């Protein structure tokens, strides 16, 4: 299981599939209860954002092993509208959909590393990593 697994996100049920995949991989890699919940929650936030704002996209999850340092990486990809003001969407409470605006800043806190690349009218790629302690 050193390969990447992906889930296509097109509807609400795909969000559930993505987080189940994440939980299973996190469990297999040896993450504890709390980190499993963090990883699952982060995947849920990213998958829902894809569904809500881009319509469709995919979530890929991969185990990582860098010089003996093990972890799990989530990559969320879409070809949606992109994000115009990245700094704004990383603020707690910022939402364009009447949500809590907790998703993206939340994912950043739930995970150890976080990066976001987005181009308007091209799409968004978000990558987030959790290291095994």
């Amino acid at each position, binding site marked *: 299981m050193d390969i990447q697994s992906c889930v296509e996100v097109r509807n*609400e*049920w795909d*969000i*559930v599939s993505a*987080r*189940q995949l994440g*939980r299973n991989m996190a469990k297999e890699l040896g993450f504890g*209860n*709390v980190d*499993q*919940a*963090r990883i*699952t*929650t982060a995947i*849920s*936030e990213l998958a*829902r954002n894809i569904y809500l704002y881009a319509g469709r996209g995919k979530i890929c999850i991969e185990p990582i092993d860098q010089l003996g340092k093990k972890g799990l990486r989530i990559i969320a990809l879409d070809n949606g509208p992109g994000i115009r003001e990245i700094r704004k969407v990383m603020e*707690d409470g910022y939402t364009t959909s009447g*949500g*809590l605006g*907790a*998703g993206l*800043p*939340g994912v950043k*806190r*739930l995970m150890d590393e976080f990066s976001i690349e987005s181009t308007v009218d091209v799409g968004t790629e978000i990558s987030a990593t959790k290291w095994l302690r």
Partner: protein
Amino acid sequence: MRIPILKLHEYLLITIQVEMDDQTALQFQEDLLNKIHDTGAKGVVIDLTSVDMIDSFIAKVLGDVVRMSKLMGAQVVLTGIQPAVAITLIDLGISMREVSTALDLEQGLDKLRLELEG
């Protein structure tokens, strides 16, 4: 999928035992409000012991359901929130400050009884 709502005297009891997708969560919100309306229930316990993940969407639905129930005259207590879930909610920046909670179903019922009768 529908989450069953049980009636016990003037209380409603819900044990969430399914992996909640968005539709299930919204359906539950609607079902609970209808049930409060139909039964005149004064208290509701929602037990989350089997729930291993609450994201911002589910947190919003739960927070809304508590506020909506209050508007209809019913107090809601959330019970059994797992430690891992409590930790991730704080990571998300969601405090659930205005929501009443208890350790388990039994203590949730005690809390309602105290608030409603005391």
